[in-house]
């Protein structure tokens, strides 16, 4: 898709020179056409201000329009995480590691999206961190300058050679080539830590897992591993907590959407962590992002869908929606507590949510069913991850359509 933007230059007389810059802000694949018009006035044709009778430069770029960059902050490290798979599935296609490259690469590529793991920007490898006594959570272990340079380059359409951090060996492997995709997702511990990187993000998400749920999930993940015991898992979480609270947690306030996972309130004294209470905290006033709401935007609603029309099994489902403030920002919070047991519960809930940016009725349900084997497919985590994925698709479409609309207006003028 070619994008052409027209620029008019101010000229004092009919002859003027236009310097063609070697590298414009569009980066690559440039073709510039310059039209000269005679200095005689055309007498008020069309819009007045700005359309002086000077020469105009029309710049067309054959390369893709600017990449949309999404940031996702999550603790568990990078890779084939469920959110990424749901997100790429919303756009269609499955995300795969780059073919023919390093088998331990953390990158995932699909037709529309490329997912980059920010662990690749570690400045210290495992032995280096051990010597210095720093964790991967510490900013000293990461090269933010390189991260900023490369994300900026990809955003402007330039391919980069990104280093690879091998999680198996703990070493930094030779770089791999990343070509600019339509949507770039940067996933890791510090997508919003550095201010310059934060400004490049078009949308940012933070997955906030509460301590009890984190402990329960880590037990499920690690108890199968020989050598791990309850004490070692607990010790590992506690040891990382100071660094986590100091460096990772503060990124919450910059996120446009926070998915907070808490233990359920429906079952008293539940410590299994199977039923979850999930809150989707959406910042108000974000460009191209309109928060999901229930029944009436801006009011406070408490909703239990189970009743006469819908029968649910224990412990049922409970929704809450309302405006709030979060770290000084105006937000809307949509909360779900409980589990989906049947298809009709899911479709019933979907039909009552508004502003979910689906293209057809039942799209959320269809996406959740497509990945019914993913963890969280029966509770708020899967639901909100899917909804955020649809919102990102909507954001992408809005950004790309606004980019094609703006140049058209300029050529009309």
């Amino acid at each position, binding site marked *: 898709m070619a994008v052409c933007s027209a620029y008019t230059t101010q000229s004092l007389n009919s002859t003027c020179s236009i310097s063609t810059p070697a590298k414009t802000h569009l980066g690559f694949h440039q073709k510039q056409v310059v039209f000269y018009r005679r200095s005689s006035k055309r007498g008020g044709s069309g819009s007045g201000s700005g359309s002086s009778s000077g020469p105009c430069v029309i710049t067309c770029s054959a390369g893709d329009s600017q990449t949309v960059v999404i940031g996702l902050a999550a603790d568990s490290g990078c890779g084939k995480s469920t959110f990424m798979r749901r997100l790429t599935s919303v756009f269609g296609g499955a995300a795969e590691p780059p073919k023919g490259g390093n088998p331990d690469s953390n990158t995932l590529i699909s037709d529309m999206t490329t997912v980059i793991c920010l662990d690749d920007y570690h400045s210290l490898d495992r032995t280096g961190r051990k010597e210095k006594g720093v964790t991967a959570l510490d900013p000293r272990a990461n090269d933010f300058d390189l991260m900023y340079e490369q994300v900026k380059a990809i955003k402007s359409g330039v391919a980069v050679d990104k280093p690879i951090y091998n999680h198996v060996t703990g070493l930094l492997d030779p770089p791999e080539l990343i070509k600019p995709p339509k949507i770039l997702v940067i996933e890791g511990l510090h997508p919003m830590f550095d201010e310059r990187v934060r400004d490049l993000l078009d949308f940012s998400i933070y997955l906030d897992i509460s301590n009890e749920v984190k402990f329960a999930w880590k037990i499920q993940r690690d108890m199968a591993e020989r050598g791990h015991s309850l004490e070692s898992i607990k010790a590992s979480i506690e040891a990382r907590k100071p*660094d986590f609270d100091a460096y990772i947690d503060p990124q919450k306030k910059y996120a446009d959407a926070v998915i907070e996972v808490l233990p359920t309130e429906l079952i008293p004294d539940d410590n299994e962590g199977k039923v979850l209470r999930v809150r989707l905290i959406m910042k108000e006033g974000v460009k191209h992002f309109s928060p999901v709401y229930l029944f009436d935007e801006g009011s406070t609603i408490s909703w239990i869908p189970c009743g006469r029309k819908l029968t649910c099994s224990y412990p049922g489902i409970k929704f809450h929606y309302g405006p709030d403030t979060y770290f000084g920002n105006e937000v809307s919070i949509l909360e779900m507590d409980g589990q989906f047991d049947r298809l009709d519960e899911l479709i019933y809930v979907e039909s009552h949510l508004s502003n979910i940016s689906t293209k057809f009725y039942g799209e959320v349900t269809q996406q959740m069913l497509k990945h019914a084997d993913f963890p969280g497919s029966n509770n708020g985590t899967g639901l909100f991850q899917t909804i955020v994925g649809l919102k990102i698709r909507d954001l992408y479409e809005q950004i790309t359509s606004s980019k094609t609309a703006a140049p058209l207006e300029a050529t009309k003028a």
Partner: protein
Amino acid sequence: MATLFTLNFVTPRATASLRDSTKGSPIKVPYLNQPMKRVLSPLESRRMQVRAAPDSLSEKVEQSIKEAQEACSDDPASGECVAAWDEVEELSAAASHARDRLKDNDPLENYCKDNPETDECKTYDN
């Protein structure tokens, strides 16, 4: 660091040249008769005691937990202790990802992903 003298990897042809280069004393090469029994030179055996290389991820996890417990027994708040537990976390995550990858490793599916046109993989939807 001096390279390890490869006395261990000796072929019959090389034995002859070695015999010539040394001062005439016979060189014991037990490998040729019993390749299983590897006689370690002192340098190599010292190395192997210090760094027993774990080849699978699970062993790495186990070892990292032991190291973390040792590092934390002196001072639970030190940087070494924290970094050691962080390494445990990283390796556990890598192990769980590897387990997931193994779970969905259907050879037919993998083959068909790359070659959808072959006879085994063609699908007729309409």
